[in-house]
């Protein structure tokens, strides 16, 4: 039971403890080590003394004492030591635990998120740093999630922390005038994290699957800390909608099941309802952005009771809107699919052929698969088989490959 309480505290409090310790010590490595020590101490003491009323405050205080000890032993300047010792608490709401209220400094995690996702850091470093400092994954876990050696990941993290220190990347939430350019970088890291986990094959790799849960957890924190940023809620809603459908997405043998064949009774209605409420609240602010629009598209699928009920015309309209904000070839391809479903496969095919001719999607593995699907729907079976074979050569996972092979069998029969 105590182990469970410590594990829960680790999940809920790690980011906050590290974020606060970084603020007061200015030393990322020290902050992580002291946070680690605090959790080890909890495992020792909680069985004896009971679980504190405010585990987060207890852990932060313990970690801060560790930091003071460490700094004293390393004989750092008295100024620094005084700063850490005096680490100020805003007087929090009265509570009888006698422990200073750390929750009163709510934006340390937000500070940490923005610093980890600073655009002056390499994208892969942003993701790794976020997982290490905010989610508390070990270097080994992050390394295995991104299929690199532990040594490589340790170097990547070390370099990023060194740059933050040497180049003086500020530890703060950017001022208002920088938020419009900095917030998307934070959202992008969380979404990338989510997709890394989401696209991992079913039981194959638990560490990777776990990334989706971490991403959702962090997106919840972000939305709470940025209540005026509708895109944060859009992103959270989008993740929840994908996650709600993840159970029906693969067969037990790991084969990809297309949306229209999924068993919709396996979708998580509670999550879908939560996401819809979040999205509605965000859209009411009338500041649409790419995540809100993608969530709205996902919601169109999620609320359709049967595949045939899907409102493809509305989805096509949403893709129009998304394309105006984010005119990427992948968005154009998805728009073509929606138009193909709303107005008939030939209409979609015309758009896909244009896209293919432009060469913009030459490296995108879903181009051939999309063309194949529209050709199949249009009844042009021999052309479809050729396109499916092409797609087969580019498929990234076994699940995709077995799905494409099934399609070839079906239309060749």
């Amino acid at each position, binding site marked *: 039971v105590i182990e469970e309480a410590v594990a829960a505290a680790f999940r809920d409090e790690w980011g906050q403890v590290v974020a606060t310790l970084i603020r007061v010590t200015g030393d990322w490595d020290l902050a992580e080590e002291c946070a680690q020590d605090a959790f080890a101490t909890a495992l020792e003491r909680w069985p004896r003394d009971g679980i504190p009323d405010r585990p987060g405050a207890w852990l932060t205080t313990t970690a801060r004492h560790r930091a003071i000890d460490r700094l004293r032993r390393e004989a750092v300047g008295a100024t620094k030591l005084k700063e850490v010792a005096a680490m100020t608490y805003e007087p929090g709401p009265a509570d009888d635990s006698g422990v200073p209220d750390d929750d009163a400094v709510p934006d340390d995690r937000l500070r940490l998120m923005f610093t980890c996702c600073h655009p002056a850091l390499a994208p892969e470093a942003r993701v790794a740093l976020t997982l290490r400092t905010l989610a508390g994954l070990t270097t080994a876990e992050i390394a295995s999630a991104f299929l690199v050696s532990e040594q490589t990941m340790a170097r990547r993290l070390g370099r990023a922390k060194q740059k933050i220190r040497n*180049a003086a*990347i500020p530890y703060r939430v950017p001022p208002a005038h920088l938020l419009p350019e900095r917030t998307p970088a934070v959202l992008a890291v969380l979404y990338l994290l989510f997709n890394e986990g989401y696209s991992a094959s079913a039981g194959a790799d638990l560490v990777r699957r776990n990334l989706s849960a971490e991403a959702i957890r962090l997106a919840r924190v972000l939305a709470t800390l940025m209540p005026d940023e509708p895109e944060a809620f859009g992103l959270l809603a989008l993740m929840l909608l994908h996650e709600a459908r993840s159970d029906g997405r693969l067969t037990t043998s790991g084969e990809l099941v297309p949306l229209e064949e999924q068993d919709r009774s396996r979708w998580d209605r509670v999550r879908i309802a939560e996401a819809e409420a979040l999205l509605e609240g965000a859209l009411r602010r009338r500041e649409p952005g790419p995540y809100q629009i993608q969530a709205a598209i996902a919601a169109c699928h999620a609320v359709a009771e049967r595949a045939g009920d899907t409102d493809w015309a509305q989805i096509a309209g949403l893709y129009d809107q998304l394309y105006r904000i984010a005119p990427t070839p992948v968005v154009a391809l998805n728009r073509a699919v929606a138009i193909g479903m709303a107005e008939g496969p030939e209409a979609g095919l015309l758009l896909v052929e244009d896209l293919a001719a432009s060469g913009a999607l030459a490296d995108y593995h879903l181009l051939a698969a999309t063309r194949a699907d529209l050709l199949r729907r249009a009844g042009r079976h021999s052309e479809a088989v050729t396109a499916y074979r092409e797609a087969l050569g580019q498929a990234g996972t076994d699940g995709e490959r077995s799905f494409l092979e099934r399609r070839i069998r079906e239309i060749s029969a």
Partner: protein
Amino acid sequence: VKYLLLICGDESAAVHANDGCEGWSEEMTSRGVLEGGAGLAPPSDATAVRVRDHQVLLTDGPFAETKEQVGGFCMIDCEDLDEAIEIASKHPAARYGTIEIRPLLLGPPPDLS
């Protein structure tokens, strides 16, 4: 924090050699962040020096033949990387070339206790 701004550009940037800074230097000097800097003669005027086995070896041209070459530099002293980025992005050369921001390697800060 002190940074060196390396102003880089390819051959086409040469036409801007005598543009001046369109008021950038004046603005940054009055803000108190600009500590100095200069434009450089083209890389074809460069001489690379190496000493190997006590021998001074000279080569004509820059130390590395790359598409982009350093055409000027500025020393700035400002709050943090965000301010350095803001300063660099206002430099007219950022619109046709590239500005590399390099923090200076300084010893540990003096202990004032």
